[in-house]
C-alpha cells in the first residue's frame, strides 16, 4: 500500500480531485436514529441507501462546482466583451456586446438565470460563436469518450496483467524491467511522450497518422488509425499508476495466512495470485482505475493539443480564454459529473467486493 501513497503526479492537479479522491466516509446511515423510516430502509438495503445518499451528495457537489466555476471566471481580469475583442475593443463595441449578453446585470442575477436554464437542461448558446452549447459539447464529448474508451480498453487489462506478473516474479528481472519501464513512462511529461511518438512513428517512419484530427463523416477504421498515437501516449501515461497499485495491493494480501495455506496446498503461483489474492486486493485497484478513467476523460488537454484532437478539454480551454461562460460552465459541470460518477462507482464496487464495508460497526 505504501507505494500507492505517492499518487500519480499528473492527477494531483485535477479539478475536484481533492474531496473525492479518497472517498470520504459518508455519514453513517445509522446516524439518523433507529426509528426513522430512513433508518429502517438503510438497514434493509444498505447498498441502495448508500447509492441514494451518494446521489444526493453528488447533486449538492455539482451545485458547489458550478458556483465555484462561475466565481472563478468572474474573478479573472477582463470580462467576455473585452477579452473577445482583445486589442480591438472600442468602448462602443464592448458596450454593445455587454448589453446584448446581459453582462450589464449583476453577477448573482446572471448566475441564477443560468442555473434556471441548466436545471431545465438548457445550457444556452455560446457567447462567442452563438451556437448551441449542448450540440457542440455533444460532438466534443463523444470524441473525448472515444479516445478514453480505447485508452482504457488497452491500459486496464495491460496494467493488471503486468501487475500480476510483477508479483509473480517479484524482485526478479521481469519485475524490475516492468517497474523501471513504467516509472520511466510516468516520469516523462505526457507532451514529451507525445512528441517522441510523433517524431518516430509519424515523421521518421511515416507509418502513423498525424494530426489526429477526427471529423464528421470519417470512417471507423480511419478514426482508429487517427487515434493510435494519442491512445498510445495515454496508455503509457496511466499504465504505471494502475500497474503499481495492483502490484502493491496483491503483495499486501500475499503476506496473509490464507495465501500461505494455498501455497502449502501446492497451488501454482499464478493461480494463487489470480484466484485467491486478486479478489481481495480489488478495492484499492478499482479506486485507482476510477481515478485514471476520470483522468482519461477530464485531464487530457495537453495530449489533445499536441495531437490536434478535438476533444472536450481543448473546447473548454478555448472557452476559458475568451471567458465564454455558458461553455465553461457546461464543460465544468460535465467534468465534475464524470468525476463524481466514477468515484461513486468505485466506492460501490469496492463495497460489493468487500461485504464488511456494508455493515459499519
Amino acid at each position, binding site marked *: 500500500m505504501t507505494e500507492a501513497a505517492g499518487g500519480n503526479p499528473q492527477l494531483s492537479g485535477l479539478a475536484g480531485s481533492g474531496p473525492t479522491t479518497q472517498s470520504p466516509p459518508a455519514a453513517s446511515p445509522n446516524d439518523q436514529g433507529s426509528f426513522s423510516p430512513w433508518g429502517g430502509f438503510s438497514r434493509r438495503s444498505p447498498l441502495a441507501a448508500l447509492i441514494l445518499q451518494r446521489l444526493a451528495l453528488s447533486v449538492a457537489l455539482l451545485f458547489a462546482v458550478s458556483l465555484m466555476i462561475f466565481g472563478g471566471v468572474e474573478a479573472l481580469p477582463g470580462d467576455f466583451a473585452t477579452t473577445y475583442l482583445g*486589442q480591438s475593443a472600442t468602448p462602443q463595441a464592448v458596450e454593445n456586446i455587454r448589453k446584448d449578453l446581459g453582462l450589464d446585470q449583476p453577477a448573482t442575477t446572471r448566475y441564477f438565470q443560468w442555473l434556471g436554464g441548466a436545471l431545465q437542461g438548457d445550457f444556452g448558446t*455560446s457567447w462567442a460563436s452563438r451556437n448551441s452549447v449542448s450540440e457542440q459539447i455533444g460532438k466534443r464529448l463523444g470524441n473525448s469518450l472515444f479516445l478514453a474508451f480505447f485508452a482504457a480498453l488497452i491500459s486496464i487489462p495491460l496494467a493488471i496483467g503486468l501487475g500480476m506478473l510483477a508479483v509473480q516474479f517479484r524482485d526478479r528481472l521481469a519485475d524490475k524491467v516492468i517497474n523501471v519501464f513504467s516509472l520511466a513512462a510516468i516520469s516523462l511529461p505526457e507532451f514529451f511522450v507525445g512528441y517522441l511518438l510523433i517524431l518516430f512513428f509519424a515523421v521518421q517512419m511515416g507509418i502513423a497518422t498525424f494530426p489526429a484530427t477526427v471529423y464528421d463523416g470519417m470512417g471507423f477504421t480511419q478514426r482508429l488509425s487517427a487515434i493510435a498515437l494519442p491512445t498510445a501516449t495515454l496508455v503509457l501515461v496511466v499504465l504505471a499508476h494502475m500497474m503499481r497499485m495492483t502490484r502493491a495491493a496483491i503483495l499486501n494480501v500475499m503476506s496473509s495466512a490464507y495465501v500461505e495455506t494455498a501455497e502449502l496446498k501446492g497451488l501454482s503461483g499464478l493461480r494463487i495470485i489470480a484466484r485467491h489474492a486478486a479478489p481481495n486486493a480489488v478495492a484499492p485497484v478499482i479506486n485507482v482505475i476510477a481515478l485514471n478513467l476520470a483522468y482519461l476523460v477530464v485531464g487530457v488537454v495537453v495530449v489533445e493539443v499536441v495531437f490536434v484532437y478535438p476533444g472536450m478539454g481543448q473546447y473548454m480551454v*478555448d472557452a476559458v480564454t475568451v471567458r465564454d461562460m455558458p461553455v465553461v460552465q457546461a464543460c465544468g459541470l460535465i467534468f465534475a459529473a464524470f468525476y463524481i460518477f466514477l468515484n461513486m462507482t468505485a466506492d460501490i464496487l469496492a463495497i460489493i467486493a468487500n461485504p464488511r464495508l456494508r455493515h459499519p460497526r
Partner: protein
Amino acid sequence: MTDYTDYLARQVLLGKMNRREFMGRAAAFGVTLAAAGTMFDTAARAQEPKRGGHLKLGLEGAAATDSKDPAKSLSQFTFVAGRCWGDMLVESEPLTGAPVPALAESWEPSADAATWTFNIRKGVKFHDGKELTIDDVIKTLQRHTDEKSESGALGVMKSIKEIKADGDKLVLVLTEGNADLPLLLTDYHLVIQPNGGLDDPNAMIGTGPYKVASFEPGVRATFEKNADDWRSDRGFVDSVELIAMNDATARIAALSSGQVHYINRVDPKTVDLLKRAPTVEILNTSGRGHYVFIMHCNTAPFDNNDLRLALKYAMDRETMVQKILGGYGKIGNDFPINETYALFPEGIEQRAYDPDKAAFHYKKSGHDGTVLLRTSDVAFPGAVDAAVLYQESAKKAGINVEVKREPGDGYWSNVWNVQPFSTSYWGGRPTQDQMYSTAYLSTADWNDTRFLRPDFDKILLEARSELDEAKRKEMYHTMGMMVRDEGGLILPMFNDFVNAASKQVKGYVHDIGNDMSNGYVATRVWLES
C-alpha cells in the same frame, strides 16, 4: 543590365532563387524595389499553374469560438476561410499595395474624394446559383455599418455616410473626402453575401473560388472547387482542407511528415531547424505589423520630449531584430510606416542605437530614478525577452529601466492603452491614413501614445482628401517626422510573416498586404506532383 536581370529571372524560374535573394541582388544592380518585385513576379508566374489535387493547410489561431459570420471573423483560420469562399469589392495588388478590381470592376471619385461611384461586375454567380446584384452589395455594406452586426470592419465603415444605388452603380457618400476609400473596401470582413447576409450571416455562401463543404469551428474546414468561378486565374486545386493546429510543434511535425502542405506562424526560434528539412521551404514576407514600446506623451515623466528621445536612442534595433525575430524582420524608425505602404516617404534618416545621444537627452530631461516598463508575453512573441534586452542597452546609456511583468490575462484591458509605458504590437493597416487615424489622431480610441497634436491632426485630414499623390507624399513625410521625433512611439522592428510550405506548393505570392499571402494562399497556389 538587362542581361543580368534576365539571368536572375532565369534563376527564379529554375527555383534556385527566392524573392528575398532576387530583390537583394537586383537592388544591388540598381533596379528599384518596385520594378524588381514586378520582374520577380513575372518570372515566377511564367510557370504554368497545374490544376487539381487536394491542398491541406495547418493553421494556428483557430478556436472553438470561431464564427462563420465574416463580420465577426477574428482568427487567422476564419481569415483564410473567408478568402476561400468569398470576394470583396476591391483587392490590393500583392507587390505595390495598390487597389485592383474584384467584384467592383472600376471606380471613380468626385473631385473632393467624398463621393465614389463603383461599377459592379456583371454575370457573377453566388454558390447557390443566384446572380450578384447591386442590392446584395448595398445590403452587405449596410450590415457592416450597423453597430449591432459587431462587424470587425465597423471602424472602416464609420466614414461612410450614405450607401445607395445609381441605376446599377454603387454610390458611396463619405462624411469627408478620402482618397484611399477603395483600399478600405479590401477589408477581409467585407465579404459580399447574398442579400448582404441578412437572411443568414453564417451561410458561408459567396462568390469565391471554393465552396464550403464543411466547417467545424476550431477543428477543420473543407472546401470544394467552385466550377462557376468568375475568375480563371485562381482556385487551382480541386479541394482545400484547413486544419486547426494551435501547437507550434504539431504544425512543424505535420509539415515535415508531409501531412499538410503549408503551415503558418513558424516560430523564429525554430525556423533554422525547420529549414534543414529537404522537402520544406520557408516563406517569409515583409509585413506592416510592428512590435512597439509605447509611452504616453501626456503623462509624467514621459511628457518630456528629451526623456522620450533618450529612450528612443537607447533602443538597440539591430539586436532586437536578430534576437527577438531571429533575423526575420526589418528595423523600425519610430514611425509606424515602412516601405510596404503606398506613398512611403523616403529620405527619413534611420535612427540608430546611440548611448551617447541617449545619455545627453536623458541628462537634459532632468529625470531621476528608474523608468517603469510594463510587459507581458501576450504583448508580442518574445516581449518579455525584448524588454530585458532593452533594459540592458539602456543601462549602457546610464538609464535605469525597471521591467515589470504583467499577467497575460487582462493585459489588453488593464495595461495597454492604460499604463504610461508598456509593450504592445500593431498589425498593419491598408493605408498610411488608416494607420495614423487609428492610433495617432488626437481623438482616436486607440491613441496608445496619447499623441495629442492638433497640427498633426490637421495635416492628416488634409492628406486624406488630397488626390494629388506628390502632395500627399510630402504630407506623409511631415507626419512621419513628427511622430518619429516628437511622438511617444519606440518602434524597434517590423516583423516578417514567417510561414512554411512543402516544395510541392508552387505559385506562392508574397503579398505585402497581410499574412499568408494576404489570406489568399489557398486560392493562389497549386500543387506540383
